[in-house]
């Protein structure tokens, strides 16, 4: 079997943070109760000049810094996000120009709520496998929106991760991938609406849990594996509770999900959510480690990946870019007022 998978990776988390307690104080809620209820203590916030394009560029540059790949050999860029800066005009071209990959390549922006980034990985894998491209760059990034006062405001965060996919010097082989999708309207944002809507408790059992468990079971069957065969497991993390619960349902331990569970400290980075978790696992992974990842996108679907870390990871210059932990620890707290200004809550026409 031809070894196709991740050749390099990079993540990016903006350094601004707002605490759940600060948000709760504005809306007359009990901050500690909100934090423990959601399993999220603080979330990352994009600065006034940061958006999905800049986060994608940062993550892609981090991935490139860890290798000697010539950006011109990247022949596809797919960016998954639900906060592309433009409704019409690609984010991918901005990123392609910024990293020096243009013009001899294919570019497209993806949208499938929080799983568009993993869809980008699957398509890069397919193009490499088909021999159409040498390297593909798959990115999941977001500056997630939440209406003021909505429950989402405590978690909607900014961040992303980029993965160079190829078949040379693969650091993590993608052994199997499996997807599961149905039309399940649990969370959406209509065209020209500023903030998303959601179905409250409907986003749980029939949406997140049904799709992740179905995808995970399908992947385990396809790969012929069991939960205990994996060193790490990563599930989409809209809050701190859901991924822990779904892991338990599927038979994964809290130890397996710990390294990839970043949501308590940065919030839900939407299209970046499971992928920043994967970047965090790759920051510490050793040759032979096996990784199980299942994303979730509302609407709804899940992409699952069975990944094995190869010896090449020791040759990757991981230290050339900051680890996810370093980025999580490098932070600056802001007030709700500054948050409101930076996230465009204070706008007028």
């Amino acid at each position, binding site marked *: 079997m031809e070894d196709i998978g991740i050749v390099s990776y990079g993540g990016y988390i903006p350094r601004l943070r707002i605490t759940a307690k600060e948000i709760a104080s504005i809306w007359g809620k009990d901050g500690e109760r909100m934090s423990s209820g959601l399993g999220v203590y603080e979330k990352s916030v994009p600065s006034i000049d940061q958006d999905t394009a800049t986060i994608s560029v940062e993550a892609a540059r981090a991935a490139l810094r860890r290798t000697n790949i010539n950006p011109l050999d990247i022949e596809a860029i797919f960016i998954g996000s639900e906060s592309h800066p433009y409704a019409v005009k690609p984010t991918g071209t901005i990123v392609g120009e910024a990293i020096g990959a243009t013009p001899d390549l294919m570019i497209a922006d993806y949208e499938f709520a929080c799983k568009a980034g993993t869809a980008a990985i699957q398509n890069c894998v397919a193009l490499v496998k088909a021999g159409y491209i040498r390297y593909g760059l798959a990115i999941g990034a977001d500056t997630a929106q939440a209406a003021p006062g909505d429950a989402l405001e405590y978690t909607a965060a900014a961040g992303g991760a980029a993965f160079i996919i190829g078949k040379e010097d693969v650091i993590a082989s993608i052994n199997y991938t499996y997807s599961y999708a149905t039309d399940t309207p649990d969370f959406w944002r209509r065209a020209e609406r500023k903030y998303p809507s959601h179905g*409250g*408790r*409907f986003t749980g059992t*029939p949406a997140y849990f049904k799709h992740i468990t179905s995808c995970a079971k399908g992947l385990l069957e396809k790969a012929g594996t069991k939960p205990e065969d994996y060193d790490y497991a990563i599930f989409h993390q809209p809050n701190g509770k859901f991924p822990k619960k779904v892991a338990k349902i599927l038979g994964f331990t809290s130890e397996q999900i710990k390294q990839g569970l970043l949501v308590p400290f940065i919030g839900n980075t939407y299209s970046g959510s499971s992928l920043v978790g994967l970047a965090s696992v790759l920051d510490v992974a050793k040759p032979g480690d096996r990784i199980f990842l299942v994303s979730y996108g509302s609407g709804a679907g899940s992409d699952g990946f069975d990944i094995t870390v190869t010896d090449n990871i020791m040759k990757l210059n991981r230290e050339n870019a900051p680890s996810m932990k370093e980025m999580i620890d490098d932070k600056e707290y802001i007030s709700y007022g500054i948050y409101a200004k930076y996230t465009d809550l204070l706008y007028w026409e």
Partner: protein
Amino acid sequence: MREVAVIGIGITKFGELWDKSFRQLIAEAGSKAIFDAGIEGKDIDALYIGSMSSGRFIGQEHVGALVADAAGFSHLHIPATRIEGACASGGLAVRQGYLSIASGVNDIVVVGGIEKMNDVAGASATETLATAADQEWEAFFGATFPGLYAMIATRHMHDYGTTKEQLAQVAVKNHANGAKNPYAQYKFEVTVEQVMAAVPVAHPLGLLDCSPVSDGAAAIVLCAMDKAKEFTDKPVKIIASGQASDTLPLHGRRDITTLDATVHAAKMAYKQANVTPKDIDVAEVHDCFTIAEICAIEDLGFVEKGKGGKAVEENITTLDGEIPVNTSGGLKAKGHPVGATGVAQIIEIVEQLRGEADKRQVEDARIGLAHNVGGSGATCVIHILEAI
């Protein structure tokens, strides 16, 4: 008046039933009841359906005929009527079915109750439930049901020294019972500490003092007593049906800690059945909030006025207590699909009187009572049943 018996019962699981429609739920409950009774469509003289607000919850009114159609009886052209009395809709439907047989008009009727509440968001469900309060005097000023019952609780605490712990014990007991009920929404136990520490909803009521928003349906088959033996060996006789009304808003009441509608409906029912509260072996009462159960056991005469909290504390109402209350888990743990509740209460009593309540069985239960309330107490309907 002719005597009336329950000859069939059917219920769906209560809970967040995302994958079941209104039609599916009522068809499931109805067909179970019909199967249990061993009757056919052509035997049914009339259908009565209790539903509080199908129009606001699923955008569908005219559900009487819809239910007959969903049951596959459209070709039989059975008279089908929807009954509404807020959260007492189910109990009122039972009473209408009962009266139609007692009067001699019908021999066999099917009574259903249903609500599909989770198709709207939580805030919208709260708003819909608030339509059972007085719009002009209560809802427009921001009152919701937790708010109204919180006022009742606060006054009860002030007048009688009832404590938040005693309220919590109602939830603890009902969850313990619900854990034994396969159809309950919440099949788990809770502790007094958990109830006390739950998210505040309207002081002194926390999240675990409140019944949930639920989907579910329940149905029973009623039959003239003289024909009941043709269908079942274990008919359960309805020995009384009482109903009363009161002011719609809370502020119009003589005393907000007493639901006079309960007092009057109970008086009517006890008189008809020729029993006293002491004769009741098992009761299902309308515990939409923990305080509501405390008021109910007082207003039904199980305990003296003001002693409800103490009675709960002394375990008088537990499964093995002097007068077991809400053996099904009550609205609190079994779930509260409003239109279905009154019918589901009858089902629990029938199971108890048939001796089929399994782990929830009250020993030697002969006489049971079901107490269903609409709004903050403007409507109350009570049935007393007896094992034959």
